């Protein structure tokens, strides 16, 4: 069995000596260990994650086989509390029920998106592997929708199936920088990031700007900003006089540095996701960056909650519906998008979620439901309000990585 078997006697003896004694002794164990290390190294090197952008096959409608005709189902992933609920049964969604009855499509509605990044982390492995994520329609914030589209992981929508959506989408939503001409995505709702405060906690003091959030001594340790980079940095840049739609690296860095200074002074209590509402409600957070729709809802329960649209503008964005690559029921998804672009349905939805409604004609419908809401500038903004809303400009992949890295370091990790 030994390596030197079959050699002439003296040579074999020399081999044996050389291999079994002295510093160079190569015992079988050591040989095996060396071999296994080398094998492990080779196997390590064989791992890797394939590039995302290569898979362009998923984007053309005709490329992904659509099973909508045979399978009258639709898996729809959305954010919590982002759809109307029944008056008696909170588990029912009246607009969705009506869609099911009309179209005969059974909708599996799941509220499993709590955070853009987390959800992306969840579906990315399947998308990267070219597999169906099990979701036919997902709702992502515009910058994340932009990333998914950029990576070729969204299916192109067929305008022929979207007659209402094509006609009723308000003009200002059409030229979206992350999806020009709305080929891949349609807005579910518009979002506005503004400043909100609890009047009781601030002892009646008004909080109207990011400057005040970051610098007012009386708010020390009682303000929060959002973990969404585009909102927090965008609004801070606007406050500093930069344009969030055309900013430079330096302006981005200046915004980071400014917030960092406030963090170091312990002005900020924390960076929060959707969960800032509880603390704003209780007064632990006196003032914060907030999403307008949340505030409209919270104000119904707590009259101490006030909001302010900063003079220098607010950050405007959309949460977009899109069909992930390889999803089986694109036509069913298109039917649902189109349904929600009927003005009467859109008004019913907006009456519950209180976010900016992207559908032309919904305001007139809303007047029949709730006159106050129809006049609410946070749901149906007027020209002046629209002009104050600024987007966060789209980023290239490299830029996004760089900005996220800096922002992550800022928010404490």
């Amino acid at each position, binding site marked *: 069995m030994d390596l030197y078997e079959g050699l002439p006697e003296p040579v074999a003896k020399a081999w044996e000596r050389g291999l079994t004694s002295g510093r160079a002794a190569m015992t079988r164990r050591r040989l095996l260990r060396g071999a296994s290390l080398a094998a492990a190294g080779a196997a390590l090197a064989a*791992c890797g994650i394939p590039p995302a952008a290569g898979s362009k096959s998923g984007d053309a409608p005709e490329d992904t086989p659509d099973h909508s005709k045979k399978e009258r189902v639709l898996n729809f992933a959305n954010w919590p509390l982002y759809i109307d609920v029944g008056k008696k049964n909170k588990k029912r969604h009246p607009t969705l029920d009506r869609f099911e009855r009309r179209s005969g499509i059974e909708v599996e509605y799941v509220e499993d998106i709590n955070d853009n990044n987390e959800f992306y982390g969840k579906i990315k492995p399947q998308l990267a592997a070219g597999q169906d994520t099990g979701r036919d329609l997902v709702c992502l914030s515009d910058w994340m929708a932009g990333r998914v589209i950029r990576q070729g992981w969204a299916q192109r929508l067929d305008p022929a199936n979207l007659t209402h959506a094509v006609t009723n989408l308000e003009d200002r939503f059409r030229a979206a920088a992350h999806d020009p001409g709305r080929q891949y995505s349609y807005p579910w709702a518009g979002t506005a990031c503004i400043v909100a405060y609890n009047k009781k906690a601030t002892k009646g003091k008004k909080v109207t700007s990011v400057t005040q959030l970051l610098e007012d001594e009386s708010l020390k340790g009682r303000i929060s900003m959002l973990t969404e980079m585009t909102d927090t940095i965008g609004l801070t840049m606007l406050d500093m006089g930069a344009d969030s739609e055309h900013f430079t690296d330096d302006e981005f860095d200046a915004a980071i540095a400014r917030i960092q200074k406030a963090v170091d002074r312990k002005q900020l209590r924390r960076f929060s996701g959707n969960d800032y509402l509880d603390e704003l409600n209780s007064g632990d957070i006196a003032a914060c960056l907030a999403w307008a729709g949340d505030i409209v809802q919270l104000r119904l329960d707590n009259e101490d909650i006030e909001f302010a649209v900063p003079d220098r503008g607010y950050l405007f964005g959309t949460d977009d519906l899109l069909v992930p690559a390889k999803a089986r029921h694109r036509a069913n998804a298109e039917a649902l998008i189109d349904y929600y672009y009927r003005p009467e349905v859109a008004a019913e939805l907006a009456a519950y979620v209180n976010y900016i409604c992207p559908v032309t004609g919904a305001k007139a419908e809303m007047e029949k439901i709730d006159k106050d809401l129809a006049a609410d500038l946070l749901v149906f903004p007027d020209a002046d309000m629209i002009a104050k809303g600024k987007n966060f400009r789209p980023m290239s992949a490299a830029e996004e990585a760089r900005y996220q*890295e800096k922002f992550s370091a800022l928010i404490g990790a």
Partner: protein
Amino acid sequence: MTAAAPPSGLSGPAGAGRQPGSTDGGAPDGAEGAPRRRGLTPYWLLAPAGLWLAVFFVAPLFYQASTSVQSGSLEEGFRVTWQFSHYTDALATYGEHFLRSFGYAATATVLCLLIGYPLAYMIAFRAGRWRNVVLVMVIAPFFTSFLIRTLAWKTILSDGGPVVRALHSLHVLDVTSALGLTGDDRLLATPLAVVCGLTYNFLPFMVLPLYSSLERIDTSLQEAARDLYATPATAFRKVTFPLSLPGVVAGTLLTFIPASGDYINAQLLGSPNEQMVGNAIQKQFLNVLDYPTAAAMSFLLMALILIIVSVYMRKAGTEELV
């Protein structure tokens, strides 16, 4: 608990594998196949756990090791380039987070020991017929999710809440503020809140091993010490405490290790100035999408914990855990 297993059980398949030789001599049939089959039994018994470990521990660890030396981006893909600089970069950038994590975890572990030891002692020696009730009370929090329990602390410790008001009127907050543990008359979003959260969440992991090791102490040994004129304090110091050391070591490890990697407490009860290394890894993975750095940081965390634990084990000098 593994308390019931005899110490020899730890020697595993090697020890068990040798046994057939000694027992088989006396076997009447003495067939050739029998010892071999017996010899394989321990391996079959190990197979489920081994398989589980291979699939859910070794394979992910291996994948993680590979990821930590890759470079690239999500768009271009990641390739193994043996880039070990992720490790040094992570340590340079997040050294503070590592230190903070170990500091908080160590403080929480000490607090758990200080709170848990008297409790475990009471359950083991003084609880009488209440023993089971108290034990259930120790375990009861596990019936609720970790996340919910931590969220509950946010309400309990909130700025306008009774706890903060009471501590404020007792001037306790002035003391803790002077020590730099709190600030601005609040508990939430301070280091103190994070450490308290960790202590609360991991206390049962300290109490249970302590209890199981105290409970096995033969009380006649304590009586003997008293008979030999030891004061209660001396008897505790020289008899009870040394005999409970395996429980102390097991408890501290079960508390310290998960507490170092925890990120829920820092996220919910801390401010941006209290984030731990777990938070940093999460952000690297989910927000920055820098998988190699996240993997390298996870490895660093594991390695550092391993070093700390082995130094501690050597100092504690307990060969036999539990």
